[in-house]
């Protein structure tokens, strides 16, 4: 019996997992609030009470992307200063503290840099690459993580933190994660048409009726436009042709019942009758 127990014990020891597989920690994984050695000296708790969100920024010394990420986080830190958010930079426990402190100083971050002694936190969160930012909620549980990105790193981390703070909703977060295209001026034919209408209005003010008409017609070539019909109506009215103007105002109001020039012009022509 003792021999059997011994065998079972050995088998159990052999089966003890000692290291997670490659995947990052799943959302909901709770991080223990351990006290770690600070690169600047002394020891600090990883998490602070009353913080609604924590960003753990895992970085490596002598690595350009870590420096770049920390610089981005410095901007984030500044943007969220005074809020219930804690930023902590975490380096491997093997990192010389002076090098870790120098990295933080070069990046201009105010956050503490903590050394993960024995790399237990690395292991808990499955951190294998640098840089990576883990976002924790008020309970210290993983809400999400963001691997390095050269574009919009701070924007994305900031939005995730603001989401945890309850400042923005999911739709607003999604708009940061997938921002709408920043179209070029003139991509939309309606915008180009509006330019012609606006120029036509200026020409109308200057009593350049033919040029104003030409501008309105150019606008109509680009896109159907209530503004262009209203402009043509105003040109007709200015030339004393209210019946024609009224027809054009009606065309404008069919496209946009709230077109202000058409409404005003129709009223003026009606009053003039």
């Amino acid at each position, binding site marked *: 019996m003792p021999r059997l127990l011994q065998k079972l014990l050995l088998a159990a*020891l*052999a*089966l*003890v*997992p*000692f*290291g*997670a*597989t*490659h995947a990052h920690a799943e959302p909901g994984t709770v991080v223990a609030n351990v006290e770690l050695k600070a690169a600047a000296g002394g020891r600090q708790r990883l998490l602070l009470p009353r913080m609604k969100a924590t960003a753990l920024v895992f970085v*490596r010394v002598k*690595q*350009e*992307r870590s420096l*770049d990420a920390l610089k981005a986080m410095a901007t984030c830190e500044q943007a969220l200063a005074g809020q219930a958010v804690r930023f902590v930079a975490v380096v491997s426990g093997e990192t010389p503290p002076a090098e870790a402190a120098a990295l933080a100083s070069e990046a201009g971050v105010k956050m503490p840099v903590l050394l993960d002694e024995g*790399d237990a936190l*690395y*292991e808990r969160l499955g951190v*294998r*690459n*640098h*840089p990576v930012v883990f976002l924790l909620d008020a309970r210290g549980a993983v809400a999400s993580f*963001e*691997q*390095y*990105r*050269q*574009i*919009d790193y701070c*924007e994305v981390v900031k939005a995730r933190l603001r989401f945890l703070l309850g400042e923005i909703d999911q739709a607003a977060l999604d708009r940061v994660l*997938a*921002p*709408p*295209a*920043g*179209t*070029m*001026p*003139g991509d*939309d034919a309606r*915008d180009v048409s*509006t*330019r*012609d209408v*606006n*120029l036509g209005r*200026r*020409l109308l003010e*200057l009593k*350049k009726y033919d*040029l104003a008409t030409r*501008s309105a017609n150019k606008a109509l070539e680009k896109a159907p436009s209530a503004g262009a019909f209203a402009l043509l109506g105003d040109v007709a009215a200015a030339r004393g042709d209210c019946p024609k103007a009224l027809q054009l105002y009606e065309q404008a109001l069919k496209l946009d019942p709230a077109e202000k020039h058409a409404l005003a012009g129709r009223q003026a022509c009606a009053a003039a009758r």
Partner: protein
Amino acid sequence: MILRLSSTIRLLVVPCLLAAAPALAAPLKTEVRKLATRRGAQVAPLPPGANVKWSHAPYETGDCSICHERNDRANPGPITTSVNENCYSCHEEFQAIMARKFKHVPAVETCTNCHNPHNSTERKLLVGEMVSMCTACHKGIKAQLDNATVRHDAVTTGEKCSNCHNPHAANVEKLLIQLPFDLCVNCHSKDGMVASDGKPMTNFKAWLADNKVWHEPVKAKDCSACHRTHGGTNFRLLVSAYPSTFYAPYDTKTYALCYGCHNDKVVSVPETTTLTGFRDGSRNLHYVHVHQERGRTCRACHEVHASKQDHHIRDGVPYGPKGWLLKINYTKLPTGGSCAKTCHETKTYNNKTLTSSAPK
């Protein structure tokens, strides 16, 4: 776990041990010199005889008082409002454009920093050729373009800088019109594209649709995490070294690209229980694979953009001039994984216990 190359692969690999020339990493961020290059210096109409190709509609009307105090070509006087206010009175869409998060300082300052409001030899009434204009301030980009041995056509063809950047304002950093990936895929989504070295380029739309395990930078839509999009000195515009040939001896320096994020210890230490899941007991199988002169490198087993299998493990390795694919036959197991006969006999590894799976 003893690894033996199959005779097929041995024949293939040995003549191909051509190392890519180690290339230096280019800096991630480039310098921008805020030069007062123009600041309204060239707003007058071009002189007679200039090769005018584009003319502004208000200028074409011949009535200076549309914008100026007087309708007198010889002495029109100042414009009646600020420059941008004047422009926006017709170009209404700029109210929305300039409300975007990221704004270009010269555009905020005055439209005439870049545009001639009368006429121009350039499209969009630009005061000069676009790349020259942009790089007059963006010195770092100019240096990249000047020193590039691998060039990106996107910078110099079509809309040039505006292929990717909105020089007024944008919703993405660096004034990008969209996230990098969305921009890149606008072009890199067709078959038949060929790189400057004559090699076919990937149709990323098709590739990513077919391979669902995406590398993190791809997931983040951040192609620029690995590619120097303006031009560079590395194969495929990569930000740092990566072998241009499939079979090349392993050297940490030639994989600087990977080690920009990944820890190079993942291959340099023979024993580990933490650095990688690709271990048999504590025996680091990355180390085992690369520390042989057979060209088994990161690239030999991993796909960089996307794969069908976990850990970005590629389906197979290319073989022969017709690009046959010899399957790697990786299988994920509850206690690790196995690779079936191709490069070597079927091998299984166990990363859950101290006990090795070898010999298998």
